[in-house]
């Protein structure tokens, strides 16, 4: 999602405006072009930390520290994200496991300055969750109640 969004922003505004506080963009030379103005109203700028990048993001469980990394997102036919694929375990990349976790089981929490992606499952629940396979029906682990 963010990648698509970012592409629009880059095309119209340039990278510097991406993380700035709601500046009204595009006054000046591009003023008067109706196509550009239309895009500007469709590309609101979010504050830093209002939107977060997900791919490659470290995931933590509530109790223990490192629980893995987001490597993919799974969306339904309407484009709504339903699950995140998390890779965890192993050593030097050998023996890692991939599992799909219900999207609503994930959220960002702030630990001081850096927002941390927290999964609402324990390490034990993660490790025994069924393996995610790219070309097979995804088995999604739901959040614990």
């Amino acid at each position, binding site marked *: 999602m963010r990648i698509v969004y970012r592409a629009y922003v880059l095309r119209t505004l340039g990278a510097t405006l991406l993380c700035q506080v709601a500046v009204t963009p595009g006054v000046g030379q591009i003023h008067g072009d109706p196509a550009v103005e239309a895009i500007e109203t469709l590309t609101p700028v979010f504050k830093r930390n209002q939107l977060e*990048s997900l*791919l*490659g993001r470290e995931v933590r469980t509530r109790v223990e520290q490192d629980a893995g*990394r987001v*490597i*993919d997102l799974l969306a339904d036919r309407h484009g709504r994200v339903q699950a995140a694929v998390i*890779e*965890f*375990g*192993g*050593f*030097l*990349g*050998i*023996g*890692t*496991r991939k599992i799909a976790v219900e999207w609503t089981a994930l959220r960002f929490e702030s630990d001081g300055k850096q927002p941390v992606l927290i999964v609402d499952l324990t*390490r*034990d629940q993660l*490790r*025994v969750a069924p*393996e995610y*396979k*790219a070309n*097979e029906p995804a088995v999604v682990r739901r959040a614990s109640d």
Partner: protein
Amino acid sequence: MLRRSSGELDRSVADTGGRDLRGSEAEAHASKAPSRASQRGLDWFTFFVADIQTGFGPFLSVYLTTQKWTQVDIGLVLSIGSIVSLLGQVPGGWVVDWVRSKQRAAALAVIGIGLSALIIAVAPLFATIVAAKLLHVASSSVLGPAVAAITLGLVGHAAVSPRLGRNARFAAIGNGLAAGVMGACGYFVSAQAVFFVTAVLAVPAVLALSRIREADVDPVRADGGIDACSASAAAAGLSRLLLRPPLVILTICVLLFHVANAAMLPLVGSDVTMRSTQWATALVAACIIAPQFVVASISPAVGRLAQSWGRRPLFLIGFAALPLRGALLAWTNDPYMIVAVQALDGISGAVLGVLVPLALADISRGTGRFNLAQGIVGSATGIGAALSTIGAGYLADRFGTATAFAGLAATGVFAFVLLLATMPETKPAE
């Protein structure tokens, strides 16, 4: 990269006065023992070569994940790497036979790997990673045979067996240490740091290589006996080599061995990750590092015994350890037991690590094609590993991990029986 290196090496041949000197040089070499400095240089060189290869395995995909790469792109880069690697083994061996200075070929290969690691660390874009991967694969296909060629050129056929044992010891220490250090580095610092460390380690590798005296390595001996550079001798050597049944048998046995072997460790790792609550990372690390301890401790003995017992009994022991390991892994669920069983991997590892280059040196003796023979067996290793991953993955998906281990063990039994029935003793009668 290969073309450029060949050009330089060709020039070096011209600098030293051409090929007609080779015969007399070879005679001079045969009489004198290699210097202590060269022996030490080779020890450290094998150690650092093992170090710089650690980060390029499955860890590359972990690193690319941290760089926000999609699974599709990661899969594509890894597939390109494995296919080119399969195709590159034989040409890599051929190049090592063809060039005169094995050290210079090895040095260029090490620099190529260091450069590749540096590119991966600083520029993780699709095009640069593909280029870095290709550079790594091309360099590795030269480096593998070149290490054995330097060894054979340094000590000659008569003394190569214990020296290969010593190589395997230093390589195993390098592998074990690098896995520990780089694993910790990736875990506590960053995945990127692993590739910076790899690039830096290429420097001591080249330094160690420079300690091996050029004059101590006989280029003709390093090719397995005759001058692979002269056209008629090369053609004769090639047909003689390819028609030797032991080479065909060994290639098939090694292929089957790796069909049974390659998927076992990843499967073990993922099984331990699933079964162990607290110590998963440490236990998977132990599964990787424990066999290296075993290899480091028994390889020199394997090298010595290969001289007194011959090659065949040791081959049989190494091939027998593999199905035993598969069967035990199919049977046990306990993570600590799994680590213990993994020690058996060290027995196979030591035997294959010492005996395969040794048997190839036996078989290719007098053909001038020792390194091409290594390339052929290297391809077999790659094909076997690829088939192993596919086969074991299918079995694990459909029938579970235990069945996958059993399937791998059954393939290992087949490899053992084939070796028992067909592989002759290759140790020359003294």
